[in-house]
C-alpha cells in the first residue's frame, strides 16, 4: 500500500511543530534543540532535522506529515524531506518583520517541488498589528499567474490544521 507524505515548512516559529502535534494521532517525533541565536528571544527550542506525525485512514493507509526545519541553513533537509512528497503547506508567521518576503523565500526554494505537486499557504498570528492583509499576499504572488490557497489559521487548533490539509488535498485533486 502506498504511503502519502505531506510536508509542512515555513520560517522558525511559524508553528510547524505545533501543527503536526495538533493533528498527529501518534506522539509526534521531534528533533528540537536549544535555540542559541536571536530566535531564543521568541522560542527556547527549534527543529533542526524534522518533525514527524501520522494519520491512519479507514483502510489502514498512512498519511505521513513531515515538518522541516525553518532556518535556511537547514536547506539540505528541505531537499531530503520533499523527496516522494505529495504536497506542501507553507506556514507564514505574520508577526515576523517581513512575512511577504518569507513566503517568497519558501516559494522560491520549493519551486521545483511545488511545480510537480501543490501548495497551500497558512497565515499564522494574523492579529499582529503589523501583519499584512491577506490581499497583500495575493497581490504579491499575482505575477506568478497561479492562484494559491492562502488561509488565515490558528495552527494550535486541530480543525485549522485539518483545514489546511483538506485545502491541499482539494488542490491536488482538482487544481492540477
Amino acid at each position: 500500500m502506498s504511503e502519502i507524505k505531506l510536508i509542512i515548512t515555513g520560517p522558525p516559529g511559524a508553528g510547524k511543530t505545533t501543527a503536526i502535534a495538533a493533528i498527529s494521532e501518534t506522539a509526534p517525533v521531534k528533533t528540537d534543540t536549544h535555540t542559541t541565536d536571536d530566535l531564543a528571544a521568541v522560542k527556547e527550542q527549534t527543529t533542526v532535522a524534522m518533525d514527524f506525525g501520522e494519520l491512519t485512514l479507514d483502510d489502514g493507509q498512512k498519511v505521513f506529515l513531515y515538518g522541516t526545519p525553518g532556518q535556511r541553513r537547514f536547506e539540505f533537509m528541505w531537499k531530503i524531506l520533499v523527496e516522494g512528497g505529495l504536497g506542501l503547506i507553507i506556514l507564514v508567521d505574520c508577526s515576523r518583520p517581513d512575512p511577504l518576503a518569507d513566503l517568497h523565500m519558501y516559494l522560491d526554494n520549493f519551486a521545483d517541488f511545488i511545480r510537480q505537486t501543490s501548495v497551500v499557504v497558512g497565515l499564522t498570528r494574523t492579529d499582529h498589528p503589523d501583519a499584512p492583509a491577506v490581499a497583500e499576499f495575493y497581490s504579491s504572488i499575482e505575477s506568478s499567474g497561479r492562484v494559491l490557497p492562502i488561509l488565515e489559521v490558528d495552527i494550535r487548533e486541530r480543525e485549522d490544521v485539518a483545514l489546511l490539509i483538506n485545502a491541499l488535498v482539494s488542490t491536488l485533486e482538482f487544481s492540477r
Partner: protein
Amino acid sequence: MKTLSCKGFSSKDQLVLKSLIDLIIARTSDTWTYSDGDDSDVVIIDTDNLDDHDAVFRHLESRHTVAIEYTSDTTASSRLRLQKPLRAANLISVFNSVEARIANAEADESHTHDTLQPLASQEPTPEILTALDEGQAKYLSISAGDTTCFIDLPGNRYTCRGDLTLPAVLGASDRTVSTTPQVENLATTGEWRPYPALRWLLGTSLSNGELLRGINPNGQFKLHHWPPAEVPRAAPYTLSLCALLSREAGASIEEAGAQSGVARADIIGFINGAYLARAITTPAATKPTGAPVATEADTSAPSKPRGLFGKIRDRLMRKAR
C-alpha cells in the same frame, strides 16, 4: 404534499434523513413527509449498501416513482443524486429539483428526463443581493426568531440585535430577508463588526440556487483568490470548488458539479459569494436578468479517480483518535 421513503439506508442515516426533513421543510416549495409505505412519491436509495440497486431503480421508474441515488461515489451519473454524507443544502436542492421535475412531468408527459428544472426560490434574495451590490439599497436586514441582523455590505460589517449569531440567522429555516434604508436605534444593536467573510457568506447562504443578475451561467468561472477560512470551515465543500475554479482555465458550473459532486445550488451560492467579494472572473453576461437558470445534468466523466483524497478528507473530518 410529497412523500418520501428510503431503501438500503443504515438506521443512522435513516434517522438523519428524517431529522433533516423536519428541519428543512420551510425551505422547500412543497411539504415533504417521511413515509414508511411503498407508495411514496420519491425513494432515496443507498446504492452503496444495496447490491441490486439497478433493479430497484428500474422497478421504481416503471411505477413513475422518482428515484434518487444516495452514494459516496463522486463519478458523474445521470441519476438524481444525493452525495454522502447527508447535508441539508443538498437535500433542499434535490427536493426542489424533484418538485420541478414532477410539476414538469405533469405538464408535459413527453419531457420528463435528464433536465433539472429551475430551482424554486423561497425569497427574492439574489435580487436583494444584487441591489445591495449595486448600491440601490443601503442595508440588508435578516431576521430569525427574536434576532435581527443588519448588514452593511459596502462596509463589510454587520450588527445583530438579539441572541443569535449572524451565521445562525443566515442558516435559520424561518429567516426573512429585506432591505432597509437605515438601521433604527443603532445604539441598541451594539457596534458594527467587521467581517471579511461577509460577502462570501451571503452568497453561499442567500442564493437559493439563483445566480446574481448579470452573471452569465454559461462559460468558465475563474477564481482570483480563495475565501477567508471561515467559509470552508462552515462549508468544507467550498474547498473543492475553490480548487476547481482556481485552475488556469477556470471551470464551468457543469464541470464543477460533475467533478466535485457538489450540488448545483451550492456551486451557484459559492459563485455569487465570490462575485460579491470581487474574487472571481465570470463569463460575459448575455442577459440582464437574475432569472434562475436551468441546465442539463452534467454527465461528463470526472478527470481522475479520487478515492484516496476522499479517504483523507473523511479522516480529517473525524475527531482526533
